[in-house]
């Protein structure tokens, strides 16, 4: 259904909006700042998204992902810096912009009293050339729920409907804020497939996630943000290869936070990133590899609250990671960054239940699949 998006983006809008050059970025963010009180939610963020690109903003909760997206969606004005979407000002040019973008918010915003089909028809009615709502319901696996009122849909079904609502207008650009949050593994895979379809149709996608695995699988490029700043920005392959080859050190500056270390070391996997599992001292050096392997046994990627055996392994991982460096110089040359993989083990150890909510729901098969992807990622052999 998304076919024709490329053509449309190349075609004139309705004559009122000057066309940007064909290769003009779909999204430009430069020096973006947004503060709430004394907290700088977004602190000098800058990136641009090419037309047709799938761009992921990866980071822990509170990193400023949603604030950035909501500035681009026109919900709030930045305190400083530039935000341009399809060459337009998200607030000043809202009228021209809104028919060309699709939005999936963290809160689904579905009317509880309307059925899934009615909601989709409602939004289809807002756009000049919408997709067929019923076909779209099929595509997101909600055919059987078409006549169900939104208040009775499950969390995952609501997310899928919100995704359908985001693309029913055949947008040129889609903002997806944590699109797979609350989805079971099957729905998540279906969502990934849909995002890939959008990409093939030439739709630009800007998504946020705190799942490394999701960013790695979907995105052409990934920006890792923490505390309102970009700590790394590259293709998923380059980010992980860089970590292997030591090139990752360019972002391994002092203060490099968990998200970056996790991504670069390939140790975080689908584990939700959280600041609480902070950097651990002395994780580098000889024991790191063994520590990682031990953590892998401890559950690593798909760990729920650790089982007894897993807890033992996690303890072993800690001891290994905490072992003092034998050779500081050697450690500095190591491609793998200090403490890689710590988030997984740290999170499992601390047993923060919420952090595992998604992974706990994950089926064994998907777990195995993710684990495999995780190993590929560790080896820098990212495919797709």
């Amino acid at each position, binding site marked *: *259904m998304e*076919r*024709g998006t490329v*053509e*449309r983006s*190349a*075609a*004139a*809008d*309705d*004559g009122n909006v000057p066309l940007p050059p064909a290769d003009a970025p779909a999204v430009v963010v430069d020096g973006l700042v947004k503060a709430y009180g004394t907290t700088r939610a977004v602190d000098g963020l800058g990136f641009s998204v090419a037309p047709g690109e799938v761009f992921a903003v990866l980071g822990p909760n509170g990193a400023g992902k949603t604030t950035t997206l909501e500035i681009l*969606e*026109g*919900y709030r004005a930045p305190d400083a810096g530039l935000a341009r979407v399809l060459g337009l000002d998200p607030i000043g040019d809202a*009228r021209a912009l*809104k*028919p060309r*973008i699709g*939005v999936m*918010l963290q*809160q*689904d*915003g*579905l*009317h*509880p*009293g*309307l059925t899934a089909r*009615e909601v989709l*028809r*409602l*939004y*289809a*009615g*807002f*756009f*000049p*050339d919408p*997709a*067929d709502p019923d*076909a*779209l319901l*099929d*595509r997101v696996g909600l055919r059987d729920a078409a006549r169900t009122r939104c208040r009775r849909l499950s969390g995952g079904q609501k997310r899928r409907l*919100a995704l359908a*609502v985001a693309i029913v*207008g055949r947008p040129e650009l889609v903002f997806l804020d944590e699109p797979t949050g609350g989805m079971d593994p099957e729905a998540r895979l279906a969502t990934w497939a849909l995002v890939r379809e959008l990409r093939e149709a030439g739709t630009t996608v800007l998504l946020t996630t705190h799942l490394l695995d999701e960013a790695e699988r979907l995105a052409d490029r990934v920006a890792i943000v923490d505390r309102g700043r970009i700590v790394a920005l590259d293709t998923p392959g380059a980010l992980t290869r860089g970590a292997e080859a030591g090139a990752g050190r360019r972002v391994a500056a002092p203060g490099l936070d968990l998200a970056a270390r996790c991504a670069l070391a390939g140790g975080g996997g689908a584990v939700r990133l959280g600041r609480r599992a902070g950097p651990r001292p002395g994780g580098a050096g000889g024991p790191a590899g063994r520590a990682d392997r031990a953590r892998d046994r401890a559950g690593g990627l798909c760990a729920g609250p650790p089982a007894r055996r897993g807890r033992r392994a996690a303890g072993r991982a800690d001891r290994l990671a905490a072992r003092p460096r034998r050779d500081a110089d050697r450690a500095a040359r190591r491609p793998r960054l200090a403490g890689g993989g710590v988030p997984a083990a740290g999170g499992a150890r601390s047993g923060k239940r919420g952090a595992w909510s998604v992974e706990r729901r994950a089926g064994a098969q998907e777990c195995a699949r993710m684990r495999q992807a995780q190993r590929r990622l560790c080896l820098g052999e990212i495919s797709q």
Partner: protein
Amino acid sequence: MTPDAPRPTPHAPRPTPSALRPVLSQARAELLLTLRRGENLLITLIVPVALLVFFASLGIVDGGAGRPVDFLLPGMLALAVIATGMVSLGIATAYERYYGVLKRLGASPLSRGGLIAAKALAVLLLEVVQVATLVAIAAAIYGWRPAGGAGAAALALLLGTLAFAGLGLAMAGALRAEATLAGANALYLVFLMLSGAVLPLDRLPDVLQGLARALPAAALTGALRAALTAGAPFPAAELIVLAVWAALTLAVAARTFRWE
């Protein structure tokens, strides 16, 4: 989803976006929701009809020279407008914000004006049903016949709708959903007592009477009663009170309106 055939002409301009299309789409959804809110029916239709039937049948209301129905019908029409404009619209809008529905609509091509227009359309359609029902019952059971000026009555209904819709939207913008729910119902009760819809205003103590006459409910009831009574003077004062309230509440509603 079955993939559509590729667009035949890649450079064909998009269909011209119509400003009306989003409004109609939203209005359709608003109507659906209005019909589905069963609890809504109680306050918008059942209460006014029940009051009309109860008091008109018993004849215990001292409405002056005319028959009870001549006194009661204008008051029940006013109550119907208050219920739809203030209670129903205010509560529904407050909960739409609570559920994030308004925020999501804010990112769609439906403009703020388009949303208000859609809601107004739904309110007006519901009011047509209310007026038709009340008038039909009054005419069929109690032999009520139209008298006076339909123009003045329509003007009163319109200004009343604006004033009470503004009040409902202002509450929805300024208060939490739960507070709007409680506040709108409480105000409905106050307006029921101080509007002269059931209890003639001149039976009230002077202080209350003065307060009541300044409120939009009494102004709407008074304007409708004058408009529907043969030979009554044009209710200029009441209509001016209503117009002032409409301007005031709509201004506050516009200021407090938030998508989030």
